[in-house]
């Protein structure tokens, strides 16, 4: 099976990327001023030099770089990302607590941005000089130019303060106690709307712009002319023949934007106090909690890598040429 072989190759490559992230992580930790022993010493309120050496030996900090690196990678493979002295919890636990909220936000925003972006792009490409097309061009410029945290704050002013439609912060209403699943779902959804729309706004701009350009190009292609010459209905020409081709570059771009979306999520989470990895990163940076920061960097890279695999798979399903040798 060709499809299977390609998939396995890609996954092996993804695993290699992950190891590279780990090496980078460890190098950064190594280069940064101060080590775990210093942190422990600080949280203990000052220790003498001999005790410090003791701790260094215990944690293997006196070993050569390579040995320490090997140990680090080995521990990470057992899901041990170290211990947060600030939160007094293992970093893995901390992150796994926060990961679902971030995933929910990132996936919801990505789906929203792709849907709206492609729909805008297709509609405006069908009439490239129409009013709607100009509106899309303008809106995408605006969406791209506004800093996402500012958009978020404006959203809050508009839709929480002036029009009190949505909650100001958080992911769920703590006053709801004995609700059933349905009530909780609605509650989370209400909290999700503003952060999701805010995060999506940047990417709607990018996707609609590219879909429009890609669609205009495809609509002028020879095979769309063939489809018209066959006497197919206009909707069939646009949605069956043109869109399936025009969407490939948009999916590729969406894959490339994954790391930007995760980055944007950090800012959006901070604005809306969304209890995800972003707020955790923000708090642990203020607290100088290095193991947690690096753990988040690792996990968010993991999210991007997995996302890339999914993108790759979708791309191969849409376009039979991708991944098969000519």
């Amino acid at each position: 099976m060709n499809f299977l072989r390609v998939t396995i190759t890609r996954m092996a490559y993804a695993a290699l990327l992950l190891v590279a992230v780990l090496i980078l992580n460890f190098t950064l930790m190594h280069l940064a001023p101060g080590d775990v022993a210093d942190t422990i010493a600080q949280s203990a309120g000052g220790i003498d030099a001999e005790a410090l050496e003791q701790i260094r030996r215990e944690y293997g900090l006196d070993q050569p770089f390579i040995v320490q690196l090997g140990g680090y990678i080995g521990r990470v493979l057992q899901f041990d990302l170290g211990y947060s002295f600030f939160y007094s919890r293992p970093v893995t636990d901390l992150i796994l607590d926060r990961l679902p909220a971030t995933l929910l936000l990132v996936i919801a925003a990505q789906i929203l941005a792709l849907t709206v972006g492609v729909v805008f792009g297709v509609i405006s490409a069908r009439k490239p000089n129409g009013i709607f097309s100009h509106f899309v061009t303008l809106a995408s410029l605006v969406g791209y130019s506004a800093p996402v945290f500012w958009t978020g704050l404006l959203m809050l002013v508009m839709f929480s303060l002036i029009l009190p439609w949505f909650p100001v912060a958080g992911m769920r209403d703590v006053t709801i106690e004995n609700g059933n699943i349905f009530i909780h779902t609605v509650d989370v959804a209400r909290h999700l709307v503003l952060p999701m729309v805010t995060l999506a706004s940047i990417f709607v701009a990018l996707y609609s712009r590219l879909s429009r350009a890609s669609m205009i190009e495809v609509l002028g292609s020879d095979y769309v002319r063939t489809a018209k010459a066959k006497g197919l209905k206009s909707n069939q020409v646009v949605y069956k023949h043109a869109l399936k081709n025009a969407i490939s570059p948009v999916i590729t771009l969406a894959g490339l934007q994954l790391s930007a979306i995760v980055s944007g999520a950090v800012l959006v989470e901070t604005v809306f106090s969304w209890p995800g990895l972003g707020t955790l990163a923000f708090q642990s940076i203020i607290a100088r909690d290095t193991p947690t920061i690096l753990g988040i960097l690792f996990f968010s890279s993991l999210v991007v890598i997995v996302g890339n695999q999914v993108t790759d798979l979708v791309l191969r399903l849409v376009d039979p040429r991708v991944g098969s040798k000519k």
Partner: protein
Amino acid sequence: MTEPLLKVQNLRVELTTRNGTAPVIDDVSFELHAGENLSFVGESGCGKSMTALAIMGLLPEGIGRITAGSIMFDGQELTELSQERLRRIRGNDISMIFQEPMTSLNPVYTIGEQIVEVLLAHQSISRADAWAEAATLLDAVRIPKARERLKDYPFQLSGGQRQRVMIAIALACKPKVLIADEPTTALDVTVQAQIFDLLRDLRQETGTSIILITHDMGAVAEMAERMIVMYAGRIAEIGAVDDIIGTPRHPYTKGLISCVPHVLAHVTDEKQPLTEVPGIVPSLREFGKDQCLFASRCQHRTQQCLTARPQSVNFDGAQSADCWHAGTL
């Protein structure tokens, strides 16, 4: 003579560019009879393809439009039909194959799907029957192991095979007219001959009229009964293929013919020197001027050619040429 299948009269198509509008087709009239093969000849950019697209109702949206004239097909005035009525004629009664087989098939669908959908669009036929029919069609255009190849994607086929698939799609609904726009230009010489053979055979089997657009005089001599030489959006010369190749009346036709040695060798026995037509096709800005547009490249030009558009000069029966000096050359 019976009523022609397709009758184009005084057709004018204007193209809007950044530098204003230009008539890319200027006062073109011709007839196509049932079962006939009519060829359009001329250099690129002289309006051959535009004529075809105008008949198909596929002029580039917002850029090109028919501003005058009539296209009568099978008793219907195509220029006045609604988009929906035109759609039902396209691919059904009139179909078209294009110059670029490499890019004319949709890369993300199997060729089977692309043949089947034209059948489903115009005939009340079940999906299963359509697939069976598609295999028959692919067999008819001489693609081996037709049934298996239906599941192939275009990128798995060679250029010649793709053009065969295009022909299968075009002939799927047994059209009355097939327009072939430079069907072999992008293909290897050996494949070109095969495609022409195929078209000729299919025409004999189905009785479809063919409009062949080409700049290959050799192909015209072999394939067509009548031909039209176009230059800068206008008809330069029209008539029976044998007449025109035997005694070309328009200096441009002469130039085109003398580019191809074997055409002359076939028809006449005297050997003429092989030449080329000097210069290039005028730019769109020149189109529509009240003068002979070929004048800038013509060695016989006179002052008259630069100040007035030539009128048609008829020669015994069907042949006529738009040149002030057609009678004397």
